């Protein structure tokens, strides 16, 4: 009981889907990083992130862009010889980082994620144009222009909705969410 919780355990506790503490069993073989299609863009390879977690290097892990660059392609996960669900681990790091409000500056991922979730919580379904303003401030100008170009073209082709769709039983839906998390945190 006197043991302090290690960073490894903190992250493991956030891993509902990948039972237990599989991160500890990493043999550092590099299959994940060899497989990862985004690895060249990451500041630390996924394998290094696992080693850093196991070393308790919390600050360095949270400062890295690795987990925000994870594309959720699960290629590492199916190949991992130790059955570590690396993709879910990256989710857990994202959650941890958002929860602690601590992440590398200039990343779009965290802001975007929160905006996206707020939108679903409000309306039950996702809708793309509304999203833009929520993350505009963290976007580079060039990307913003490109994004607007894309969105306009989609609109012209009749492929972007003008009004966000909502589910019918929205009140029930909101109360349902209320039973899982306090709404204050997101609204």
């Amino acid at each position, binding site marked *: 009981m006197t043991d302090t919780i290690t960073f490894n355990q903190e992250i493991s506790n*956030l891993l509902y889907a990948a039972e237990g503490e599989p991160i500890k069993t990493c043999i550092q073989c590099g299959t994940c990083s060899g497989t990862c299609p985004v690895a060249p*863009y990451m500041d630390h390879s996924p394998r290094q992130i696992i080693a850093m977690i196991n070393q308790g290097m919390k600050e360095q892990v949270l400062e890295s862009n690795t987990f925000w*660059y994870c*594309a959720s392609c699960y290629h590492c996960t199916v190949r991992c010889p130790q059955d570590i669900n690396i993709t879910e681990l990256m989710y857990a790091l994202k959650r941890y980082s958002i929860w602690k409000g601590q992440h590398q500056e200039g990343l779009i991922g965290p802001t975007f994620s929160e905006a996206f*979730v707020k939108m679903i919580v409000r309306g039950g*379904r996702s809708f793309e144009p509304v999203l833009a303003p929520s993350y505009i401030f963290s976007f580079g100008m060039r990307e913003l222009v490109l994004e607007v170009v894309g969105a306009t073209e989609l609109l012209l082709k*009749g492929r972007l909705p003008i009004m966000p769709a909502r589910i019918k039983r929205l009140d029930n839906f909101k109360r349902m*969410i209320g*039973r*899982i998390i306090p709404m204050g945190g997101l609204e």
Partner: protein
Amino acid sequence: MKEYAYFPGCSLEKMASSYHKSSIETAKKLGIKLKELEDWNCCGATTYFYIDELLAYTLCARNLAIAEKTGLDVVAPCSACYKNMYFTAAHLKKDVDLAEHINFALEEDDLHFNGTVGVKHLIEVFANDIGPEELKNKVTNPLEGIRVAPYYGCQIVRPQKDKEDVEQPMFFEEMISAIGATPVNYPLKMRCCGGSLIISSRTAALGMVRNLLQSAVDAQATVVATACPMCQVNLEVYQQQVNQEFGTNFAVPIMYFTQLIGLSLEIPQKKLGIGQEFIAMAPALRQVIKG
């Protein structure tokens, strides 16, 4: 007539409406009824798992519980929706405490998840429940001479759901052969297109799109076929930007597999949503489009 509960997911409402149309039409022609879930909600995409795992499960569980009431297996055309629903169902079945917690929330909407519903990807319905043999028998307009690069993308077979081959599956190819087209063998058919990164890490995503298109073009594909709205949009809408970024010259139509099947069954183009695309499909399909 086979019947499924159908969960279109947010993208199919508008952005990928051609996928929606072609799925319904093709399925109908093949004797399968897709019955849309009443009052479904967003599956949370991958983003939801970034925020709160429990909440993400709750969102999926609501849809699963609605589907369960119909007594039918639920089918999702979008790979991300499919993966989320599949694993939510699997985790909830395995973990009674989790199920109890989530069912407590579902009570607010008079719903309950019992774990009886099966979850399928739309492509599995075509590949397994219909199967290439039956499909072949029903084809009236074989797409001869069309070289199709089947793009599996990520979350259909990954992470592993059962004992299927996660590295070199062949069911997409078999389906393409069944409709008379030629599946091309290209090494990146299982690689990620970077769809979930396009907003947050654009440079990385564009690079991934480039590699994929290059691989398909090197194998002399005339179209790329997908089974996911995210992959479709990513590969199609950003092709122009890839060209700007890398000085390439791609103009590869990215089609939904249901559009290709629909053509082979002689469903009118309009009903398949052909014409809503950025990169015109018509030139590549000239030889097989009738009328």
